[in-house]
């Protein structure tokens, strides 16, 4: 991060180095063909220079076996190499996109033009994220307005941050230090200022840092408080006069809709059902739930969804999730 002129970016995760390896393969492949063509043009272009004004070239028969072999070679060899590039690249991409099971979830909300971060314990930061070294970190991200993009060059991954839909970014930092965070998707006037820092700290230092900043959950209400404040509990609890689907243990289950379709209750489904309850009605219920669009913020929604996800499954005998 010194203002000299590096030619290659630092890497701060194992996956970043996998990307670099892939890049060097692609680079070698590209250099080979670029140099090959340049050399051939220079050699052939000078060897077969026109000697006298009326000279014409010697036509080569396209149908000669040698010509056909040549065409076959320069069609199939690049194609084979490209398939390797595809396979390898797709494998790396799947690793980049799928967080490991032991990843700790942090939350990121993007808005014009800042990043709002939240730690698992509720600690909040703006444009900065402190994370412990060696811990897989999974960011659940959403935007409050336009499309943004979370980009940390040291981790070699971009992921768009969309309005109304959660996307996931993950990394496992293996180098302490401060790394650039950029908004990688053009997002309006101050796009270039929507930048920040990822600070990777030794786990002990991270604990000290957490203890040093305002502890606990900050001014934001917890999911449980929101669940009660918004009167979700009056319909959606096993002990309420069940006019609505019971949410306990619903997360990850398949839910049957009134039109016969089934939907897996994931984060996005829970979020959509809070904001847009009429879009898809669970079989057996009336469309009576009001929308909470504009009533709760994206950050509160993250809390609320988290709370619903962790509701314990109902005791035996109670009517469960459909």
């Amino acid at each position: 991060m010194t203002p000299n002129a590096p030619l290659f970016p630092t890497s701060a995760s194992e996956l970043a180095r996998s990307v670099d390896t892939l890049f060097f393969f692609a680079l070698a492949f590209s250099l080979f063909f670029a140099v090959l063509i340049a050399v051939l043009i220079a050699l052939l272009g000078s060897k077969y220079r026109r000697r006298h004004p009326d000279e014409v070239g010697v036509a080569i028969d396209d149908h000669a076996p040698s010509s056909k072999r040549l065409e076959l070679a320069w069609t199939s060899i690049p194609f084979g190499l490209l398939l390797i590039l595809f396979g390898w690249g797709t494998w790396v991409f799947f690793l980049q996109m799928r967080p490991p099971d032991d990843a700790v979830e942090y939350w990121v909300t993007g808005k014009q033009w800042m990043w709002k971060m939240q730690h698992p314990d509720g600690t909040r930061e703006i444009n900065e994220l402190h994370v412990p070294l060696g811990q897989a970190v999974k960011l659940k991200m959403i935007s409050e307005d336009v499309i943004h993009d979370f980009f940390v060059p040291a981790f070699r991954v971009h992921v768009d941050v969309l309005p109304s839909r959660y996307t996931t970014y993950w990394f496992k930092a293996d180098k302490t230090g401060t790394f650039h965070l950029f908004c990688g998707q053009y997002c309006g006037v101050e796009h270039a200022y929507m930048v920040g820092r990822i600070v990777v700290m030794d786990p002990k230092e991270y604990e000290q840092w957490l203890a040093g900043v305002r502890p606990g959950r900050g001014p934001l209400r917890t999911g449980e408080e929101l669940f009660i404040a918004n009167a979700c509990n009056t319909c959606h609890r096993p002990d309420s006069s069940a006019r609505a689907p019971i949410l306990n243990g619903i997360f990850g289950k398949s839910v049957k809709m009134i039109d016969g379709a089934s939907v897996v209750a994931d984060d996005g489904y829970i979020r959509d059902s809070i904001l847009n309850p009429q879009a898809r009605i669970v079989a057996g219920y009336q469309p009576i739930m009001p929308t909470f669009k504009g009533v709760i913020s994206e950050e509160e929604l993250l809390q609320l969804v988290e709370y619903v996800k962790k509701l314990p499954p109902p005791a035996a005998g109670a009517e469960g999730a459909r």
Partner: protein
Amino acid sequence: MSTDTSHISSVRTLVAVFLALMVFTALTTAVAYVDLGAGSTAIALAIAFTKASLVVWFFMNVRFNTKLIPVVILGGLFFLLVLFVETFADYGSRGWFGNGR
């Protein structure tokens, strides 16, 4: 070709096609009130494609044109199909990856 009337549709053909289109219109309207689940849309589309083919083949005289014209039409439909299939490939498989969303 001015004196050659073999490339001109007869009134009888045109009126017959018109009547067929009327029958299909009645059919598609009637069938819409029967609950066939997902089949409803399929039948509605099948009838619409049949009607469109009648118009193309008889009213638009494609039966008298060179082979190039059907190729042009099917080519256009192919690229429309590409738009549908590939974009639905995205929407249809979005939930599959299960990376926590």
